[in-house]
């Protein structure tokens, strides 16, 4: 039965952002290069994750700690399979639910009601499943009659509330969180927190990236400290937080 359990296993994984994607490709840039003018800031491949070795088993709640640009979000996206690793072995078992960039991925001309369908389908649900969840999603988002208006008329807060309600109404074995977002007003935030906690309880694995060390202490049992794309500490969450705070001094 072991094969049924969720698992994240990175074995010697490296990840590079390929530089050609960020280089200027305009005719102007090309002529400059031909003319021998050296670019003062040449763009190189960015080595975003270096020799990552980590295994996360069912039941673990793991926090990712590190400075901005340390590789936390990149690691989450690599776990989600969005970023391809350039070498090593990546094994992920279980359905992934990621709450990474929430308010993205809507069809602006479609109504909130229709967008619940699109987004639910994007997240791998069937129309039938979404119809069952729909009432509850509309309720939770507190959008009321606005649900029948096109998304482009929504305020930023309304968008986040809708996105949050949809993404959190679908459960997954592996939950990937990038900061617990400040969705809506204070009342909604409290509701959002409760909902995330419920989602975490049901998930088999949680990987949580945040700068909010208190929340991390409350949610996670294990901590990974990242620095410049390498894991510099892996262990008990308290020790990981201490390690991170030491590095700040």
């Amino acid at each position, binding site marked *: 039965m072991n094969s049924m359990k969720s698992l994240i296993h990175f074995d010697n994984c490296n990840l590079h952002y390929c530089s050609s*994607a960020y280089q200027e490709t305009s005719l102007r840039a090309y002529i400059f290069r031909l003319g021998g003018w050296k670019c003062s800031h040449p763009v190189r491949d960015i080595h975003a994750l270096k020799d990552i070795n980590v295994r996360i088993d069912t039941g673990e709640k793991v926090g990712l700690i590190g400075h901005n640009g340390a590789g936390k979000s990149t690691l989450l996206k690599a776990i989600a399979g*969005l970023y*391809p690793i350039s070498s090593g072995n990546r094994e992920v078992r279980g359905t992934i639910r990621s709450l990474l960039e929430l308010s*993205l*991925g809507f069809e602006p001309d*479609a109504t909130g009601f229709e967008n619940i369908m699109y987004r639910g389908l994007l*997240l*791998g649900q069937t*129309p039938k499943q979404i119809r069952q969840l729909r009432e509850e999603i509309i309720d939770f988002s507190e959008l009321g009659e606005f649900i029948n208006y096109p998304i482009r008329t929504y305020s930023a807060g309304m968008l986040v509330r809708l996105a949050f309600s949809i993404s959190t109404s679908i459960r997954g074995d592996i939950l990937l969180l990038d900061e617990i977002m400040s969705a809506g007003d204070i009342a909604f935030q409290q509701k959002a927190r409760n909902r995330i906690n419920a989602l975490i309880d049901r998930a088999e694995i949680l990987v949580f990236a945040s700068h909010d060390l208190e929340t991390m202490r409350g949610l996670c049992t294990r901590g990974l400290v990242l620095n410049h794309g390498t894991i510099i500490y892996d262990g008990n969450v308290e020790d990981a937080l201490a390690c991170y705070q030491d590095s700040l001094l």
Partner: protein
Amino acid sequence: MDYIIKIWLSRYFWSHLALADLRSRYKRSFLGLGWCFVKPFGMTLLLSFVMGHIFHTPIDDSVLFIYSGLVIWEFIVLSVLTGSNAFVNAQLYIGQFKHPLAIYPLRSVLAAFIDMLFAFLGLIIFVFVRKPSNFGMAWMGLLPTFLLLFLTVLPVVTIAAFIGVRFRDFSQLVTLLMQALQLISPVFFQPEVFYKGNIGFIMDINPIYHLMELFRAPLLRGEWASGTDLAFILLTAFSLWLLACLVIIHQERRVIFYL
């Protein structure tokens, strides 16, 4: 194989997106999907009037020819133009959830295909009015021909989508390419025009000519499509798929970096 299963599993997603594309294309328009029919029809009238006077052909003969050409051509152009931006337009989805990327060009082709089916309805009504005697057994070939058309255009659009995400100039260039291609395809010029002008070889090697023949033989002449046309298209589709698979295998994982 795993890849194809994943495309199938995400079928609700891409089919809904295609329908959303259609809906937003005709949103708040008075004629709505009627435009699929009105656009080529108006163009056909215009063209047959002008060409009738230039080439001194009876307008009646050319109407069906031009309409059928335009409908298929519009499908190809619309698929390729929207498809070359397929990944760019879907970047918010691609960054959120890992679906096989092939579903995004598939979405473009599907939306254009539904458009074309409506326009084709117009063509069939047209044929019944002008040439009812053309209706016969040969029309049974139409259904697989539609499928073949879809399967020939899809790999082209898939390749275009991968090029389009890597080289952003491509969507501009593709407009030019399509115009050039239209000039050397029998969209509204009869193939004979090309043969008379001693450039008939362009017809022989142009898949669009053969594709259109597969439709025009039964609809416009009441005959079965020729085996040569069919063989040519099958071979073309097969080679295009080989190429598209190679592109997918080598480029799929890099796309996210180019968005």
